């Protein structure tokens, strides 16, 4: 009986907390924010996916209150079309190469990715991580490595998952994606000269019914407390 009561309390409490701090927001966010955002604000409803897919869903009329993307491209496009309020940059990131801890292909640096027979997994074109990865390879003169790509994924977590599982030999992800799977993968740095500027932008969705609360969410994300938590998760700050 006591257990039932405890369970009931556990189910009711979060709802009560959420109600106390205003409406529960629906936040569309880049997959690479999947660990950081709920830690900063656990009360909201999150949908994590590729930034491009989320932008498409907003265009199709999905009911989101806030949109946080891993690139300025899609927030700015939506802003131009009047679908979101003016986006602000709230975090930055860097790309890394990850390989499974067992490192079956013996990859020691990003330059090994050109070698024949490596199973490389990257993001699809149009997905921010996919576009950034192509920029990196281009700047390093490693575009040959695209011949080793065995799968193009629709968000960064699918890349991280396939490497962590050991099915892929290597993958390009954000530094922050390597953290939660640190026991399963080895990180290889990418030279600074090849790093593209990775900027995360957030905006209130124009069709939101909770614009005030959504605006407050955005401001909370820019607060010193949130910035400290983003930094702790491995993000850079603008």
């Amino acid at each position: 009986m006591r257990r039932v009561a405890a369970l009931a309390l556990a189910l009711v409490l979060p709802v009560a907390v959420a109600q106390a701090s205003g409406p529960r927001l629906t936040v569309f966010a880049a997959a690479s924010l999947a660990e950081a955002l709920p830690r900063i604000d656990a009360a909201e409803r999150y949908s994590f996916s590729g930034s491009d897919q989320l932008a498409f869903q907003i265009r199709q009329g999905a009911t989101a209150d806030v949109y946080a993307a891993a690139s300025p491209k899609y927030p700015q496009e939506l802003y131009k079309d009047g679908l979101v309020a003016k986006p602000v940059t709230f975090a930055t990131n860097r790309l890394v190469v990850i390989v499974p801890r067992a490192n079956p292909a013996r990859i020691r640096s990003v330059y090994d990715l050109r070698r024949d027979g490596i199973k490389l997994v990257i993001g699809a074109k149009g997905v921010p991580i996919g576009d950034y990865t192509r920029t990196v390879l281009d700047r390093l003169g490693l575009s040959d490595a695209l011949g080793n790509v065995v799968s193009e994924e629709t968000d960064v977590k699918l890349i991280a998952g396939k490497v962590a599982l050991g099915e892929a030999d290597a993958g390009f992800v954000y530094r922050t994606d390597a953290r939660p799977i640190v026991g399963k993968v080895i990180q290889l740095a990418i030279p600074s000269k090849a790093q593209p500027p990775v900027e995360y932008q957030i905006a209130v969705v124009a069709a939101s019914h909770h614009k005030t609360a959504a605006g407050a969410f955005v401001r909370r994300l820019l607060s010193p407390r949130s910035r400290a938590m983003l930094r702790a998760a491995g993000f850079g700050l603008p």
Partner: protein
Amino acid sequence: MFAAAACVVLAFLVLPVAAIFLRVAPDDLVGRLGDPVVRDALLVTLKTSAVAQVLILGLGTPAAYLLASRRFRGRSIVLTLVELPIVLPPAVAGIGLLAAFGRTGLLHTSVPFTQTAVVLAICLVAGPLYARQAVAAFESVDATLVEAARTLGARPGRVFLRIALPLAASGLGAGAALAFARGVGEFGATIMFAGSLQGLTQTLPLAVYAQFDRDFSLALALGGLLVAVSGAVLLAVKLLAPWTRFASTSPFLSAPSASS
């Protein structure tokens, strides 16, 4: 009352398919078929589906004949195991294939991310559909004809080739067509087990998924192509088996949707 319900049902079922063709002008739709993404996806789909079909028919037919003609302990359990993948969510099939054939899986193979992986995914989700239909087709063959052939001295192989196979042919054909359609539409298990790469593992359904937020009209063209393939298969089923007991409907229309 009944007519109204029938109209609602029909409108609901036809609308999404019709919308694919209404959203884009027909000549634009045909024009997009020349796009390399479409061409590659079509080739990958046809190649993997053809190989899978050979495996499904080649191994499934004798296996189904055995299951239909023998009575043994645990037969119903075996039949249930064969049918299980039909009702299995494709995502579960995908994770199961990774756990079994992945590099870190039970068998430690390097199958993931290859066309072989696409073929295996198709075989797992579409094969049981054929097997179930084939068992039913062989079971419906008149046992006295088989018995007569046997008493006249025909060996089991000859009974199978000359009696059972021709008599079950229309049922087998219908099963093969439905398995083919299910295989062409395979999505969930493939994207998890084989990944998605244009020209290698990106089949038509995977291409629709990859394109829908980037180039909607291209995704629609791919969708139209899949509708055409599926429609052709359904037509083939109707033409193959009009004289069998499935007179007005195709067998196994209750099979899980190919797009899930």
